[in-house]
């Protein structure tokens, strides 16, 4: 064991490159075991089950087939499966994390539950949202964004959405399909209707 020394800074990010699938999202053609799937659902999870789906596009509007997306979210009561969240315990096995790669047409999808409201630093409720990290070839550092839901009245008072120019908020809002527990949100890495990404 080495003695801890204060480093002179953090380790910089690098791209996942085009060949991450065997290591990180080995479904389908690869035999390595999955640490994570595209579902957060566990047998004892409570709340409204939903699917979030969409496509990822580059600055030319071309589908991105080698992206990896990760989500992190609270449970239906707005609690995180993290010891730092000191509120009541979450559902016993709900972890709130999922990962998926895009397919050859840039499609992604997650099976999850609609999250509850999470407090902001002042203790006020934020509108229900899911955190999303986007990794890919050509992306030297992953991008952070949020997924909001089109059928939430609380969006209007959400402190983070309020930081976003009103004409760009739609890029963060997954739209509920009529009559189905399915929300659609396309991601655009660049250009017209570029997704809002946050500096965190």
């Amino acid at each position, binding site marked *: 064991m080495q003695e801890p020394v204060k480093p002179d800074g*953090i380790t*910089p990010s690098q791209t996942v490159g085009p060949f991450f699938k065997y290591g990180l999202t080995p479904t389908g053609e690869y035999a390595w075991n999955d640490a994570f799937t595209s579902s957060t659902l566990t047998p004892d999870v409570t709340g409204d089950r939903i699917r979030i789906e969409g496509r990822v596009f580059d600055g030319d509007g071309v589908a991105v087939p080698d992206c990896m997306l990760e989500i992190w979210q609270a449970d239906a009561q707005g609690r995180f499966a993290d010891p730092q969240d000191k509120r009541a315990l979450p559902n016993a096995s709900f972890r709130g994390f999922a990962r998926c790669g895009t397919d050859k047409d840039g499609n992604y999808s997650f099976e999850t539950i609609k999250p509850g409201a999470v407090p902001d630093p002042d203790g006020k409720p934020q509108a229900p949202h899911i955190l999303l*990290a986007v990794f890919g070839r*050509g992306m030297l550092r992953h991008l952070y964004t949020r997924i909001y839901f089109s059928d939430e009245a609380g969006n209007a008072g959400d402190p983070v959405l309020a930081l976003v120019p009103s004409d760009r908020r739609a890029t963060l809002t997954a739209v509920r399909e009529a009559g189905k527990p399915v929300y659609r949100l396309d991601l655009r890495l660049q250009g017209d209707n570029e997704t809002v990404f946050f500096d965190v």
Partner: protein
Amino acid sequence: MTFIYPVDSNKAHPLPLSPEYKSSIKRAPNKPLIPMRHTLSELTGPVYGHETVRKGDNDLTTQHRGEPIGERIIVHGHVRDEDGRGVPNSLVEIWQANSCGRYVHVRDQHPAPLDPNFTGAGRTVSDASGYYRFVTIKPGAYPWGNHHNAWRPAHIHLSVFGHSFVTRLVTQMYFPNDPLFPFDPIFNSVPDEKARARMVSSFDLENTQPEWALCYRFDIVLRGKNATPMENH
């Protein structure tokens, strides 16, 4: 929640648009990122225990029937935060090319052999002091189409979680004294020379095992939690 993660630390990262790395040109946002205060959502994160990791997942040389071809190496180090504290229980995932510079990936068509005894993926969880260890094969350099005579320096990809969504890191570990460093736009996308040096492992003679494997040390440094009330950043 009474902690913040310093945003200044992010200066060590590459700029999203690094035109020398051609794939970044159409995939980097044009619009500036929007700064925001960290909320409970950003300050929490997936913390995984050992249930995700199977026995032997950190030894990439014993996952198949036979021994892989190439130079066996030990890669180890600590996951720490920038204040030097070990980050325990953090999942570390790795993936890499084989000793010939070929990935087990349907899209890798580099005309170098695949090794039936090496598939190049592993994972482990850092211990109570943040320590992690892998046994693997030194990856080869490989050509890529970015520019004339473009070859990636040998590297191992690492994915680390830390303890919050804002400490999530995917990086690459390089090997000391690689002659390809000056020509690699991915390595050089990190503007600060000292920060670039933090992606290069050091040869570790002390932990090299006689008659068996060379050892390289690679310490991974994640953002540090400041014990500061999060009123602003």
